[in-house]
């Protein structure tokens, strides 16, 4: 069996960034396994701008951002295999993969970084009533047809869900000559970035219907229309508000789910809220030597943060391979519900730790508070927090050194 120090599963922004960071930290025996025909992952179909402001100080498109990292991989001659699908990862870090050239093959790795990204929630999971015609796509699938294949899925469009991909596709389809009739959002607020509502919807006069959902699908062969309705505060449709919109296309932008099927084969413990692995500050999972980063760990708003997180994983994997250990501790992080989750979920080393988290609802005038029992070790005021925007705070070892557990809470005035 082939022996490789570090196997990285996925050659998207997380995988490439982790590989570069690991290489620069001193491990040269690396292999990136990418299932697609190119490095860059989903960035290749995200041809819009808005990437890289944090990382590169300029606004790049998805393919350009991917190219910046691909160049770094190429410069370092970091090996990668394309069109290669990982089928299994064992807890002992034996990676089984397949491609056309080598068939099914196995690699014994010293460390593995999971960087498989996420997938879109599909129509099936929504259980929308009605018929099953063609013309219903997840926003990302439509994006692939339009931007990579050069085909138009339809001309009269309704979008369910105001996630960023949905908003971006509203603009993209409009620029390609389609009419987008409405974007319906179940929640009373959008899950997308404010700038995307402005430049993708408002610029083109596309209505955003908050607290609305699609309740029925019509059409025998091709989609002919959808019935939408306003929802009450319990998100239940209000029958009197039903409204029929004729359309040939329904795009769904209703959430992203980390793709952790392989993590499960490796015995990695998953967080029920993030649907990603439970990790420590090094992005190490509960299985020693297996790390996770990027959207497979938790869904990020910005690729810049994915790259940053992947660097942590890359460097930590090197430290693990080289047997470098710092002073150990084990402090679990808990949340109060208003804060839905944290990443990492535990702290195992006494060093500066940046904790990322998301909130459950839109809250104004809040205080973010971190406590060890009754002792508040950190607090910070914020004017507004929203589920669509990931927050972060940095804790110093002197703040948490003796803590048994850290609870994260949001105090709302």
């Amino acid at each position, binding site marked *: 069996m082939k022996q490789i120090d570090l196997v990285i599963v996925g050659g998207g922004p997380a995988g490439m960034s982790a590989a570069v960071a690991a290489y620069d930290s001193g491990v040269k025996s690396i292999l990136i396994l990418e*299932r697609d025909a190119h490095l860059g992952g989903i960035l290749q179909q995200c041809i819009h701008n808005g990437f890289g402001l944090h990382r590169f100080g300029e606004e790049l498109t998805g393919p350009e951002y991917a190219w910046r990292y691909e160049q770094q991989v190429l410069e370092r001659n970091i090996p990668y295999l394309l*069109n290669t*699908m990982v*089928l299994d990862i064992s807890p002992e870090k034996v990676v089984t993969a*397949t*491609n*056309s*050239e*080598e*068939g*099914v093959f196995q690699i014994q790795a010293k460390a593995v970084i999971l960087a498989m990204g996420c*997938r*879109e929630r*599909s*129509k*099936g*999971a929504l*259980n929308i*009533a*009605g*018929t*099953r*015609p*063609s013309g219903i*796509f*997840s926003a*990302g*699938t439509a994006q*692939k*047809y*339009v931007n*990579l*294949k*050069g*085909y*138009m*899925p*339809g*001309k009269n469009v309704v979008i369910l869900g105001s996630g960023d991909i949905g908003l971006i596709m509203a603009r993209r389809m409009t620029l*390609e*000559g*389609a009419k987008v009739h409405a974007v319906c959002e179940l929640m009373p607020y959008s899950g997308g970035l404010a700038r995307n509502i402005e430049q993708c919807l408002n610029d083109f006069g596309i209505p955003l219907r908050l607290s609305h959902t699609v*309740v*029925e*699908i019509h059409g*025998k*062969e*091709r989609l002919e229309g959808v019935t939408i309705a306003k929802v009450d505060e319990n998100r239940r449709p209000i029958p009197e508000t039903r409204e029929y919109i004729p359309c*040939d296309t329904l795009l769904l932008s209703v959430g992203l789910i980390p793709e952790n*099927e392989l993590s499960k084969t490796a015995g990695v413990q998953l967080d029920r809220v993030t649907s990603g692995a439970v990790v420590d500050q090094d992005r190490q999972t509960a299985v020693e030597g297996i790390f996770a980063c990027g959207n497979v760990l938790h869904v990020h708003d910005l690729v810049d943060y994915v790259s940053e997180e992947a660097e942590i994983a890359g460097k930590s994997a090197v430290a693990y391979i080289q047997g470098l250990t710092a002073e150990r501790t084990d402090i679990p992080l808990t949340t109060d519900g208003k804060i839905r989750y944290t990443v990492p979920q535990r702290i195992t080393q006494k060093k500066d730790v940046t904790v990322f988290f998301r909130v459950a609802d839109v809250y104004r005038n809040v205080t973010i508070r971190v406590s060890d029992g009754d002792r508040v070790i950190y607090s910070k005021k914020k004017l507004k927090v929203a589920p669509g925007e990931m927050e972060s705070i940095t804790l110093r070892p002197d703040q948490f050194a003796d803590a048994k557990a850290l609870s994260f809470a949001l105090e709302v005035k």
Partner: protein
Amino acid sequence: MIYDIAVVGAGVVGGMIARELSAYKLNLCILDKAHDVATGASSANSAIVHAGFDAKEGSLKALLNVRGSELMAKTCLELGVKYKNNGSLVIGFTDEDRETVEQLYRRGVANGVKGLRVLDAEELHALEPNVSKNATCALHAPTGSIVCPYELTIASVGNAMDNGAELLLDFAVAEIEDGKDAFTVKAADGRTVKARYIINAAGLYADAIAAMVGDTSFTVHARRGEYVLLDKESGNLVKNTIFRTPSKMGKGILVSPTVDGNLITGPTSVDIGEKTNKATTPEGLAHVMRETRENVDGVMYNQTITSFCGLRAVGSTGDFIINMPRERFVNVAGIESPGLSSAPAIAEYVIGLLKESGMTLEKDPSFDPIRAPMHAFREGSLEEKNEIIKKDPAYGRIICRCETVTEGEILAAIRQNPKPRDLDGVKRRTRAQMGRCQGGFCSPYIVELLAQEMQVPYESVTKFGGDSYINVGKTKGVD
């Protein structure tokens, strides 16, 4: 050319009959109005091989169910179709239910079902820990099984075609003209087929087909059944197929693993006046979830991967309608549950009818009952897989990530009888697009493979024929 026999309807019944007939020296054709085979009730049902204790003693349903259940394992083996003998349970909660369970036991014994046993609560929960703690008894039928119904249909039609039968799709029979020794069957699009015999296996429309030759002795109506299918994560919740004791309202909601490892829950049971309404309803889906939760603990509907509605063809006589109302014309109608279970036996029975009617049937020595299994690659060992990949690198390229389906498997399916011509056809044959992302990642690639194999433009590939197009055209040119 005059066919010896035209089978109208390429569902599981028509398919199994055609396959059985293809073992004889006959010119056969199979007609279906849809764009592919297995698009009606055969693609949307509970996927159960019933043991045979439901149907009334002495009925055709009882006879053919028990026989069909016996034949199913061998049939599936020959056709390379997934089949699993997982057993079934009818669970009861009340004293009244207990009486029903015992009544079913006696009926099953009378029907010749083997191995039936009545279990008490303790035995039941030892066998199925996730069955509701409130259940007090159950009928255990070890011969109850599960099968993939559309795969069985595809494989039987394919095997019939490999043995010489012809398949004519998009052939909506509009008129049947009776000539002296052959029927002329006219399609809505003007095509015609001449055949000496007609086997009417037209499902929901079998009454309309029969009426075309003057037989109005029965009618068929549609019974809607809504289902919710869950992710493979939930597939191990129960081992057996779990039924509730039947009531006046019917057999109720079942919970069962599928041969592909998912969990199926459903169906509702609502009779409707028309025959095309396959829309799911909020009430129907809620009903399925509610009753499922009563019967089995721990079903997680946030793991739903799809929901759908099937239309069962219910005949007006209460039993299967298999007869010859006139010479050279066979009705195989009203094949509602346990139709899938009975299908292999129905085929056998129809051959018997034809022979009785005086038709000479001569065995074709070149008949091969074996069809290349559709899932040989995925079930192969590592070494076997590598052998195949070495010969054909397309088997090393994964197209559907969720179900791990390779380009090689998809191409093989596209090239094998009966050839799929749309996305749903590829889905039913390969499972590509059937996983948790529901084709989100792979459908653009499958469209490409279909376009390339059929040598048609990318944008002309459909989901299931007709107007179910995927793309309206190229970007840059759409006005």
